[in-house]
């Protein structure tokens, strides 16, 4: 896949991998065990401009293309899915706001998000459900004056424990609406969620809104467009980010497995000489190559602003998340008991991989959408 990258993209990928080698991999197990990311590592991502790398330079970002953004997610995903989660949601909030925010909102918030001075969170899922976003019950009501009043709850919100700015989705009557809620807003309660099986350091939280005042300046877009236009832009970048992060995890499984298979002896025989182990490695390596192409294709389509970019991101995320689950399971199998212990990163990969099948739309929701798209294409060609 490397031949599809420019020299600059290859060089940056090299830098990202070095960064992860030095600053992420040695600590990822500790973060997972302690269920928190140290402020210092988020500050480091911010300092390097990674948190706003795909935002335009005039807004304080690096202006990197989506392919390079994907490579950064891949490298971070190899080290820590939880840490990459920060980049995922920061990008979801920033991209949605950059596309649909007012001039004043873009001027006020995007440079701070781009520089990592503030961390954003994307608050869509509710305790009542995540897949059917049209059944949201978080509610905006008109109040006296220009402001709206927000009531309801959001659950499983990545980075909610430490984010300073929430992009929140709800309904105003029967129309969907999105707004920004700064963390210090009166009436917003943030309750940490601990003890997830994976993404344990991603700082998940439940948010409760009790008569939170939303001034007109914090309404994003217009009523009726939050679920059709605003959320899909965020989710699109969330899928690209998660697809590439899952690819990084898959690479981790592959690298750990081949190293183990090459060095571990069963009697006098290297483990890798056993045909059944080779089968597992063959599938992992081929999935890795296939996933790389799908991720690259999704990122290129986003860079070229192609309408099919959205379905390409669905395909990439659908494929790599499922391949990561298979690879992590096989990587644990190849290492035996050692793979079941926290000292081996594959045990963490095994828990993190499953989460990738749930976030940014579950596997079933991807199948529902992609199945519909493919069937629609055939139906139309038969008409």
């Amino acid at each position: 896949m490397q031949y599809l990258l420019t020299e600059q993209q290859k060089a940056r990928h090299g830098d990202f991998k070095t960064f992860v080698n030095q600053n992420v991999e040695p600590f990822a197990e500790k973060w997972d065990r302690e269920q928190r990311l140290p402020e210092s590592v988020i500050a480091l991502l911010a300092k390097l401009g990674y948190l706003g790398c795909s935002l335009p330079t005039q807004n304080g970002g690096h202006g990197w293309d989506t392919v390079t953004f994907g490579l950064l997610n891949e490298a971070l995903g190899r080290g820590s899915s939880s840490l990459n989660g920060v980049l995922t949601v920061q990008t979801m909030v920033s991209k949605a706001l950059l596309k649909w925010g007012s001039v004043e909102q873009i001027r006020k918030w995007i440079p701070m998000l781009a520089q990592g001075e503030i961390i954003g969170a994307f608050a869509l899922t509710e305790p009542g459900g995540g897949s059917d976003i049209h059944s949201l019950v978080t509610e905006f009501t008109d109040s006296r004056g220009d402001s709206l009043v927000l009531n309801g709850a959001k659950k499983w919100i990545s980075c909610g424990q430490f984010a300073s700015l929430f992009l929140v989705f709800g309904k105003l009557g029967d129309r969907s609406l999105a707004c920004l809620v700064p963390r210090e807003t009166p009436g917003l309660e943030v309750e940490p969620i601990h003890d997830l099986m994976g993404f344990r350091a991603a700082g998940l939280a439940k948010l409760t809104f009790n008569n939170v005042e939303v001034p007109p300046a914090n309404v994003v877009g217009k009523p009726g467009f939050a679920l059709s236009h605003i959320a899909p832009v965020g989710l699109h970048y969330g899928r690209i980010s998660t697809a590439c992060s899952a690819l990084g995890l898959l690479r981790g499984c592959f690298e750990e497995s081949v190293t183990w298979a090459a060095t571990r002896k069963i009697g006098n025989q290297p483990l890798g000489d056993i045909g059944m182990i080779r089968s597992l490695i063959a599938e992992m390596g081929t999935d890795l190559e296939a996933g790389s192409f799908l991720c690259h294709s999704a990122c290129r389509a986003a860079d070229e602003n192609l309408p099919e970019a959205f379905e390409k991101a669905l395909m990439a995320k659908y494929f790599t998340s499922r391949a990561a689950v298979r690879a992590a399971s096989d990587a644990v199998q190849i290492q035996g008991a050692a793979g079941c212990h926290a000292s081996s990163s594959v045990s963490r990969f095994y828990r993190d991989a499953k989460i990738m099948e749930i976030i940014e739309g579950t596997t079933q929701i991807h199948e529902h959408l992609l199945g519909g798209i493919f069937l629609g294409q055939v139906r139309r060609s038969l008409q």
Partner: protein
Amino acid sequence: MTNSSHAEEEKKVRETVTNFLLSSINIANLNDDDNLFASGIVNSLFAVQLMTFLEKIFVIELGMDDLDIENFKSVNATTAFVMRKKGWQKAEAGPS
């Protein structure tokens, strides 16, 4: 823009929009005034795919001010929106 070149451009825009819609939504026949957002015709990605298509093909950028269902609800509405966005207006009637 003269009235005849306006009509030509409008025809081209309408054809381009119609072809895109027929290739991306589940409907056999599409009339210029059919409501695209009527239930079942489009999936949840349609709105952003249409937005991206319009941006790409007509070299325009959509933003918050364009979020109005009247701009996208049908072939006619979308065609008129693109014509406005491109600044392709009919010639003003001259002084008589």
